[in-house]
């Protein structure tokens, strides 16, 4: 039971972390980053 509860807590933390990391950054900054492979050669 404790192992299960511990696992659920870790899972909740990681889901929260993924959502937090995914929500960081402005749309403009993410759009600019997504264009890196298209603008990386002279």
């Amino acid at each position, binding site marked *: 039971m404790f192992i299960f509860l511990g696992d659920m807590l870790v899972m909740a933390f990681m889901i929260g972390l993924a959502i937090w990391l995914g*929500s960081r950054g402005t749309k403009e900054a*993410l759009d600019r*980053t*997504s264009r890196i*492979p298209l*603008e*990386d*050669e*002279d």
Partner: protein
Amino acid sequence: MEAAENKIYQDKIVIRLIQFSVVWAVLAISAGVYIAAELVWPTLDFGQYWLSYGRLRPVHTNGVIFGFGVSALMATGFYSVQRTSHVPLFAPRLAWFVCYAWQLIVLLGALSLLAGWNTTKEYAELEWPFDIAIAIVWICFGVVFFGTIAQRKIKPIYISNWFYGALIIVIAMLHVVNSLALPVSIDKSYSAYAGAQDAVVQWWYGHNAVGFLLTGGFLGMVYYFLPKIANRPIWSYRLSVVAFWAFVYAYIWAGPHHLHYNAIPEWVQSLGVIMSVILLAPSWATLVNGVMTVSTAWEKLRTDPALKFIVLSLAFYGLATFEGPMMAIRSVNVVSHFTDWTVGHVHSGALGWNAMITYGTFYFLVPRLAGRELYSTRLANIHFWLAFAGTMLYIIAMWAAGVSQGLLWLSIDGLGELSFDFKDIMASMTPYYLLRLIAGLVFLLGTVLMAYNLFMTLKGQRAVKVAPPAVDPAYGVNA
């Protein structure tokens, strides 16, 4: 002269790694075809130990995963990390050491397997001297990769580098922990773990080698080369970031699904099932992202063989990442485990996903690196259909064989005894094994065509010199 060389991307090493990767693909797939033939005609080992199935099978898997796969990941990782960081490779001499030392490990490792050196751990068969060498070279690979990122000229670290970075860090961790052993001679060691613990550690390694090398590493390839080939940015960069973290977190727990109905605690097996099913979300997030990225470039599919391979690889990626979690569910696993269904599943990933994405990337990269058109687009298109046909035939044959085996083995009579003899069940598999052999030959033929096509494209050419572009101040490390 040296100063000028320092200002261009280090692409000669990329070409050399692609060449090694293609050579390993031909050799390792040939070994696979040979052992497929041995399953139809067992006397093909001619009484020689080194030609036996038990010795050739790990040569096939090690050659495909570590020779073909890792060389391709090193090549594409080195190519993309330079460009997404806007700097040439960090420590190029160390990178060359990594390139050649890795090939030497795979070559000598294959010879040691033929000689009978074997830890008996799947995908970690090489004995302790090779384990130490692998750890050293892998750390050097990490130094080159992360050193390049550390000296980058632009602030954001593009998503492909997160996947390649996770590949390097997690594989180092898995390899070192799983390989801990007590050597008793040059060719023999005993694992530091015993019994069920050994099994749990082995499948923590085995499953995550599939996860972080054969899935994560190749996702790095998708996130860089798909936008590049389609000439469109990834559909949702935010989704790719969420998918990365969810993928990294979920995958590491899923290994115990390889040990259902074994002597490990039931809650560990259940945890493996839960995390495997959760994995569907990040896996398909990338699938959706990839398909949506290419959805505005369908017209290129008609003319660009590289894009054809990559789009088909995404379809097989979707198939394999759906099938995997389903096979992790205990009531499905009771049928599929220890049958050829597992072999079919692995090959829908290895042929349909890993090989196709790599072939597509090579068809894109080699002409660019050589500074000329692909030698023959027609040959590449023929290769595409051979690869598609070979993969489909392979997995359909193995699905049919596996489901038959699973159901026949579960069949018991009124007295509770097996309805069918194991030997008779295996004898009835011959038609499926023959189909699998034909499928392997078709796939191998396509790979040989690609090797010839790429060789002719590169023949007499030197790597094109490409310099990093000027850095947009908005991107700059000091922005």
